[in-house]
């Protein structure tokens, strides 16, 4: 495990806490409280890469300590809910049929180790899923099926096992870009009320869906700039502003969002972020004051003004990050590059990103999920 390079060791210790996680149940990582956020400690970090999920604990000095590697076919997206890790397998065939799949793993409350509960296929021709999201009640999973041009909903039982696909929403659509010959659902998330927001990189559409008794229904659609290819989304902590990263034209846009009725309002702003690429990543700072984007050639930092407008700040060049994650204490940005998990400290006053530090060298990391622990509450849920 590499040491932080070019970074003050004392700053790292302050950031991640003073005790090692393992064997120190009573030890706590204390994070500086930030606006509107409960105090949380990072318990374990799960990195999906190629055909495995790697499980890391975090040492006192911030190093990632590998605890486990478990097989998982091309884990392109992961999410934690109620002591379970759900994984979308970005494959084009499962059981000799053209379809992707989703897995459910149990997370051991003491060690964080994963144990596979089950793996279920997506719908026929539902190949190459790109993203998944878990309902707030933990009883449904929605998958953005990029290759198959559809969304799949699956149930989760009381024991955290996935049920079969309960609903298929088949999408059609296209855009002017050469990569937009058909619909390509790329991102999915739940709003605070439990509706599903989606982004389709192929049809240049954002959608709001409702999910009820396992059935997906379209509530509303919003067309974005033709050829922009929306591929990543975040909501601000108030749930009233939606930010979208567009892969195909290297932009970031923001929209008002009314969670009471599930409606995407007019676009408020669009900014050119970077060069166009195949993917784009976004991460929201828990304070709601900063947004980070990546289009594959550097990481952009955006200050969110009081009126929600985006103001560009110096970013980090030369980092090809396909996923971004801001730690719950707001002090670090984690990025998955083509061969490493990188960490960049966030200056509390200026929000400027420090130089990236290589936490883990890993071939083709695809996805990240962080299990946070509330101090005093030792639970896997």
């Amino acid at each position, binding site marked *: 495990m590499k040491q932080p390079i070019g970074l003050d060791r004392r700053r790292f210790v302050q950031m991640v806490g003073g005790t090692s996680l393992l064997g120190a149940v009573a030890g706590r990582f204390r994070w500086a409280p930030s606006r509107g956020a409960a105090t949380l400690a990072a318990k374990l970090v799960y990195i999906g890469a190629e055909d495995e999920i790697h499980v890391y604990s975090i040492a006192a000095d911030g190093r990632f300590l590998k605890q486990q590697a478990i097989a998982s076919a091309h884990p392109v997206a992961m999410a934690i809910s109620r002591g379970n890790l759900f994984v979308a397998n970005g494959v084009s065939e499962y059981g000799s049929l053209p379809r992707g799949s989703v897995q459910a793993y149990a997370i051991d409350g003491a060690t964080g180790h994963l144990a596979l509960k089950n793996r279920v296929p997506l719908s026929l021709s539902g190949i190459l899923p790109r993203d998944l999201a878990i309902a707030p009640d933990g009883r449904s999973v929605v998958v953005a099926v990029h290759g198959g041009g559809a969304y799949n909903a699956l149930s989760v039982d009381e024991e955290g096992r996935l049920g079969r696909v309960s*609903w298929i929403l*088949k999408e*059609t659509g296209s855009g002017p870009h050469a990569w937009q*010959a058909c619909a390509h659902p790329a991102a999915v998330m739940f709003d605070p009320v439990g509706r599903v927001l989606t982004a389709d990189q192929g049809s240049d559409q954002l959608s709001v869906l409702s999910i009820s008794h396992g059935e997906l229904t379209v509530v509303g659609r919003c067309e974005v700039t033709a050829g922009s290819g929306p591929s990543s989304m975040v909501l601000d902590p108030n749930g009233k502003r939606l930010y979208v990263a567009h892969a195909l034209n290297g932009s970031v846009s923001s929209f008002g969002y009314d969670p009471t009725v599930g409606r995407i309002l007019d676009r408020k702003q669009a900014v050119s972020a970077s060069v166009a690429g195949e993917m784009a990543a976004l991460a929201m700072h828990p304070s709601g004051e900063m947004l980070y984007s990546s289009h594959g050639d550097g990481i952009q930092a955006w200050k969110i003004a009081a009126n929600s407008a985006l103001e560009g700040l110096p970013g980090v060049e030369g980092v090809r990050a396909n996923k971004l994650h801001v730690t719950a204490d707001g002090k670090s940005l984690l990025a998955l590059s083509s061969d490493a998990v990188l960490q960049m400290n966030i200056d509390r006053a200026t929000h400027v990103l420090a130089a990236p530090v290589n936490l883990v060298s890993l071939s083709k990391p695809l996805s990240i999920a962080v299990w946070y622990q509330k101090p005093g509450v030792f639970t896997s849920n």
Partner: protein
Amino acid sequence: MAILVTHEDVRFNNLKSARNGRWPAEPGDGISSVALCLNSEDTAQALQRVIHAGQRPTIRSGGHCYEDFYANNPNGTLIDMSMMNQVGILPHDDDARYRVGAGATLGKAYQDLYKLYNVTLPGGTCDSVGAGGHITGGGYGFVSRLYGTTADWVTGIDILTVDSKGKVALRNCTAKQDADLLRACRGAGGGNFGVIVDYVFDKLPPAPQEVMVSTMIFPWAEMTEEKFTRIFTAFGNYFATRGQDPETWGLFAVIEANHQSSGFMRVSAQFCNPDGTCKDTKALEEFLALFDAYNPSAVLPKPPVSNRPAEGFGPHMMTRVLWADTEAAGGVRRGSTRAKYKSTYMKKNFTAHENRVFYKHLTRMMPGVDLSRSVVEIDSYGGAMNRKEMLEKTVAFQRSSIIKLQFMTFWTNPAEDEGHLTWIRELYKELYSSPEVDAAHQGTPFPGDYYEGCYINYPDKDMLDYGYWPELYYGPNYKFLQQVKRKYDPNNVFHHAMSIRA
């Protein structure tokens, strides 16, 4: 407007069912509604509704699909074409070409075309098969050695496709317009590119005036392995040699190689001269004479006594049947029979290995598994079906075969699923685990010196276990089919387990 039948409608139980009782494999895989379409406008509207609703459409005409291609459609809508069965030259056609609606059964098509115009389709042997899936997958039968496959005669297709924006459009495909889609639909099989509404034929072959039919029975009680081998070899040798002569192309013969527990095998033949008469039966007589030495009988032996009670027979025995499924209502007992099928194209006579394996598995007994309805149907092939000029006009690449095999096993009890599937899979795999198949493709009739792959109208999902399955069905044409798929169905609206994967 199409008639939408959902689960609240009493007709739903009948209309949702597949002929093959195995499908859908899980209750949750079944369709949620059926759209009964009466014309192309209905079909277009129904399809557009399905697209707007975010559902998946599957398509059925006669419903004979061997696999679950239309039946496995969870939450989806089945587009039922069975009522679009017009046959003939439609009044609005200025150029008087023949049209066969996708919902027309072969039986209706044969009768209507004969009565109206004295022509025929060189199509299949089962009268309830629907034109929709049958013709686009090839379609062959008793007069195909004389005339070619039905797809060989198609000169136009009216098909509903869905563009990249999700809009439904009717395409009239000809050699001059959407010619690539026309070519693809001549052999690719159903459910790939859109909803075929009509097949168009500039010409059709004359219906034979008369045919000679003959059947020879070979009781298993009198069978030896040597006799079995000689019958097979005689049959195969004929079609590898004398059967290549055009004067014999009016002969279509079949070995119905039933499992031993059925009591008999059967060799049957239908014949006419190329002019559609039976004035000269020499070719038939020559063929039939090949089997004289094996004591064929004209009498079916008594079937083995079964202890299984016949359904609905006996004092106070009753069977509940949907009215529309009864024979009197012109229906068929959907879902009552379970079945599994496989296929092979053969370029040469049976080898010693094949004869041995056939005999072994046709005499194999499996405790608890009733194989009396298990059969390998061995059809003569070749003749006009091997016209090389059709290679560029269709996507059926199998133009060198002399025999086509259809492996079938039927049963009713789900508890026997595993036994029947094991029987047919082990037979098939052993047949093609031989020096006649190269090492990389063992277990399959991969195209080469001896075989030309499989027939898409006899689809077999087991072949998906092999990464080269598209080559088994489409040979060198798969890349072309993928291009057509990307062009005409960019969102992959039409798909099933073995559809073209863009």
